[in-house]
């Protein structure tokens, strides 16, 4: 009994060890390590029992381990990205898998005819059966490996989507060939084949339909669970699993069912459920998925250590390996070539290589292999062994070499030329320009179907499936604003605690020390630059002996070179990335991994601020602040303009700027609580007390006081730069992080992914312009 418990617990404990060692996992994917651990464990058990008591039985695998992983994948799927590339994904999933199966089976059979494998009693049909179980790319393995290798969105979704959707094909093929094998060769005629093809459609669409139904059911349920919030999360899991079982019961594709269930319910669940429940679902799902994955891989390792199943046939095994790899490459390249003729954004060569190389087989293949009937297929053990070896090869070897391969390929293609600063800058500028033009010209396009779907979805589905209160909150901007305020508030508090006191800002002021703040290199160089002007070097460089002029010259030259290097370095580090470069990241174990969000947030804030400024100065000039403040109090029902008015008031302080340039430099100050710094601009005492009644803005009480104090002391340079989460940030206009890609569903769970940037979605920033006019004296 204890042993049985142990077999499940040990792998999980091991996972902790692995997580702790990031070095190792960046080289060797976790899945590989887990398999090795499984070997060791299997060896121990074998040593103890002389027989392998634990193997990965199909029942346990298919009913208890796999569903969670797939549910997690479906729930966190970036829907928009997925459906945009659906065509490509389907082509690869269906045609690619069929091609893999057929080619593998036929080639192996051909080789047997040719005598390469010695004496084997396997008929053509059995080869095809083997081919069909070998063909499927495994989602578990794919995720595990791609977590390490960061690839661009499209590539990721292609491989990931393919691995999920090919289950439909695999199940059909497997069952069809299984039936054929039972029937025997002669009885197969056209009718049977047609039945097989029809069954594909039935299984695939039926499975998806079941999933969809359950997804809708979940959404409806969460709409009504306002009073039982504690058990809300449970419904997701229960109904998700139910969809899996139902599909399985109806002999439809269970994986497709649970995937679509997850995909369908994402949005509504997040909208309807209470935040705590949403968090619970997130965490629990990740925990289950992680756990299952770990156990799966460890068991894959353990199952190998079993003398009973090992049958070695060099020819068979090696040929299988070879064919699996080769046909995968051929299949992917050919299909992508066809697809590229029709795609607007073609898949590049590097991407295709990664796609082919990333076609990993995993536990699903093994599970299917073990499910083979020994009576019908005499060489079952050989097949099982081969499957295991292929799995190990792909997961371990391909997993380990994937990253170096990618780096090698990408590095090879990158141009290595010495570029000037202006070139670098302009290059970035080009990138941004291109992205902007794509946005303006509508890369995704005024898509007829998509707008029809959106119309349908907004007016009908949301109406039925979402709580009325949630529907109101679907005003994207408000929701994002709210979420981000929360996030800011939380981060601010943790930051404060980290620095040791609630009033850490005040404490910070007492240790303004020029030396102390130069912890980062850039500051050092900054000192160097500044001191060049003043003729003294900072403590990080050797002091210039005033005696020797030559040395001074040399050091100056070195400094200038350092300046050059530094300028390049600065540019490299700090240039905003263009949207194309914001990579999609999916991780089994981490939640907030896409730190590019911060950049986007920053840019967004600045843009909004600039727009407001130009709007202000264009229309109204700088008005007395009192008026502005008074007016914002009138508009309490709309949070956004509130935040904006505040902003406007603040920015109109930093000088009467209308142009972007001045505002940019004034921005420096205003970003960091300009109005509360004596040096920055006009302080309006009337302004500050007015903040308190604004309870929406949730200024922590301790901070309100400290602001007044800190207004007397200039914030230390470091505090200015290192404190992104000052209270003013909370108050400030909306880090309105509206995502242009639903990949955000991976990182910002709480933000509905309908925040697409079609032009009709985002209301133009100054809708409250008319009311404001009234408010002015």
């Amino acid at each position, binding site marked *: 009994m204890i042993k049985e418990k142990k077999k499940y617990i040990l792998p999980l404990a091991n996972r902790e060890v692995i997580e702790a060692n990031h070095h190792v996992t960046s080289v060797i994917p976790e899945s590989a390590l887990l398999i090795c651990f499984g070997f060791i464990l299997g060896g121990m058990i074998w040593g103890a029992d002389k027989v392998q008591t634990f193997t990965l039985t199909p029942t346990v695998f298919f009913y208890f381990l796999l569903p969670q992983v797939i549910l997690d994948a479906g729930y966190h799927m970036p829907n928009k990205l997925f459906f945009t590339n659906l065509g490509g994904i389907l082509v690869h999933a269906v045609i690619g898998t069929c091609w893999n199966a057929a080619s593998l089976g036929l080639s192996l059979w051909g080789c047997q005819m040719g005598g390469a494998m010695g004496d084997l009693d396997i008929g053509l049909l059995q080869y095809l059966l083997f081919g069909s179980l070998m063909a499927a790319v495994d989602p578990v393995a794919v995720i595990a490996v791609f977590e390490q290798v960061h690839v661009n969105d499209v590539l990721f979704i292609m491989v990931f989507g393919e691995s999920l959707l090919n289950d439909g094909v695999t199940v059909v093929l497997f069952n069809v060939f299984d039936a054929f094998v039972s029937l025997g060769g002669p009885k197969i005629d056209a009718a049977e084949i047609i039945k097989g093809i029809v069954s594909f459609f039935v299984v695939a669409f039926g499975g998806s339909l079941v999933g969809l139904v359950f997804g809708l059911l979940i959404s409806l349920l969460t709409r009504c669970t306002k009073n039982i919030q504690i058990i809300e999360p449970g419904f997701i899991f229960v109904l998700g699993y139910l969809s899996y079982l139902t599909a399985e019961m109806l002999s439809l594709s269970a994986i497709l069912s649970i995937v679509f269930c997850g995909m369908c319910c994402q949005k509504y669940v997040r909208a309807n459920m209470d935040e705590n429940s949403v968090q619970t679902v997130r965490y629990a799902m990740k925990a289950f998925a992680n756990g299952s994955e770990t156990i799966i891989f460890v068991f894959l390792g353990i199952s190998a250590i079993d003398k009973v199943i090992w049958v070695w046939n060099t020819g068979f095994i090696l040929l299988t390996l070879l064919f699996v790899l080769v046909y995968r490459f051929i299949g992917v390249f050919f299909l992508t070539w066809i697809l590229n003729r029709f795609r607007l954004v073609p898949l590049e060569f590097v991407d295709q290589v990664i796609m082919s190389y990333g076609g990993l087989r995993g536990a699903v293949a093994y599970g299917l292999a073990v499910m083979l009937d020994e009576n019908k297929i005499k060489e079952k053990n050989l097949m099982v062994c081969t499957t295991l070896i292929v799995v190990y090869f792909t997961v371990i070897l391909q997993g380990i070499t994937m990253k170096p391969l990618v780096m090698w390929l990408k590095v090879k293609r990158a141009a290595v030329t010495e570029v000037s600063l202006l070139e670098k800058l302009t290059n970035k*500028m080009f990138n941004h320009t*291109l*992205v*902007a033009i794509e946005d*303006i010209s509508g890369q995704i396009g*005024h898509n007829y179907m*998509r707008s029809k779907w959106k119309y349908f979805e907004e007016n009908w589905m949301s109406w039925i499936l979402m709580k009325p209160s949630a529907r109101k909150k679907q005003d994207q901007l408000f929701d994002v604003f709210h979420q981000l305020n929360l996030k800011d508030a939380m981060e601010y508090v943790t930051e404060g605690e980290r620095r040791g006191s609630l009033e850490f800002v005040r404490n910070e002021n007492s240790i303004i020390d020029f030396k102390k703040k130069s912890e980062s290199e850039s500051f050092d160089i*900054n000192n160097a630059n500044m001191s060049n002007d003043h003729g003294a070097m900072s403590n990080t460089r050797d002091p210039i002996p005033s005696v020797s002029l030559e040395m001074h010259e040399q050091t100056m030259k070195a400094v200038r070179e350092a300046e050059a290097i530094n300028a390049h370095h*600065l540019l490299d580090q700090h240039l905003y990335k263009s949207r194309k470069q914001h990579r999609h990241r999916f991780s089994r174990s981490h939640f907030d991994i896409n730190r590019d969000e911060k950049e986007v947030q920053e840019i967004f804030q600045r843009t909004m601020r600039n727009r407001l400024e130009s709007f202000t100065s264009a229309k109204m000039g700088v008005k007395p602040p009192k008026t502005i403040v008074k007016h914002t109090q009138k508009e309490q029902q709309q949070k956004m303009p509130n935040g904006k008015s505040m902003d406007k008031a603040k920015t109109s302080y930093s000088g009467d700027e209308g142009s972007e340039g001045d505002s940019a430099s004034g921005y420096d100050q205003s970003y960091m609580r300009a109005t509360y710094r004596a040096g920055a601009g006009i302080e309006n005492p009337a302004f500050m007390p007015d903040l308190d009644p604004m309870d929406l803005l949730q200024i922590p009480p301790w901070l309100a006081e400290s602001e007044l104090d800190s207004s007397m002391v200039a914030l230390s340079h470091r505090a200015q730069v290192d404190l992104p989460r000052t209270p003013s940030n909370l108050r400030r206009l909306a880090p309105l992080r509206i995502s242009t890609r639903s990949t955000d569903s991976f990182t910002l769970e709480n933000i509905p992914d309908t925040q697409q*940037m079609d032009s009709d979605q985002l209301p133009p920033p100054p809708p409250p312009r008319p009311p404001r006019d009234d408010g002015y004296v």
Partner: protein
Amino acid sequence: MDQTGFSSAHLLRLYDRFECLDRDNRGYLSPNDFEAVGGLAMNPIGGRIIDAFFSSGQDTVDFSSFVRILAHFRPTDRNRNKEGTQQELPNSRTRKLKFAFQLYDLDRDGKISREELLQVLRAMLGLQVTKEQLQSIAERAIQEADLDKDDAISFDEFKKVLGFFLLQSQSLVPDRMKRIPPLRMILALTCSGVLPSLVHLSPSTETMMEVRPKSRDRIIRALQVCRT
């Protein structure tokens, strides 16, 4: 059409987009309409791009100007040299560079002054970069590029610095415009991830007219404008 080099199919699609952006159906675009495109808000130089569409003094963009600006971003035809009209095509390399130059040069005086460079840097760099650092970068950039020592970068100096670079890169061609899929294949569109309205599939305006009579007139007008 000949001016811009767009095919009629492409124009149709652009008109569709123009209509979509023009929410009040006024027949022209104002800065508000551009600002409504969400992606621009997240673009550090979004504001400048928007300004680039509006020639000085005006605050509306009609369809022909819209198309003309976008024409800058078509792939450069490398084999048109013999006609000698290379300079005039909107998508020639020079014109593209000029467009980029104008993004820097806000006051349109033909030179990028240090101030303007500073502004660009401020816009494109993260907030951690201090003013002094910005200044040093701007300083160096001007040093590197400024050949006639007037403390500003003129268009020729700009071209010289970037000439080689542009030769290598894809020269300001957004992915979307690299390929125009064969419009006849509906299947193709499924795979391409873009499903333009079935209406706009047909290359000929006649077929289109059958399907969408109510907007026919506007499109005809737009095309006429373009053909001039």
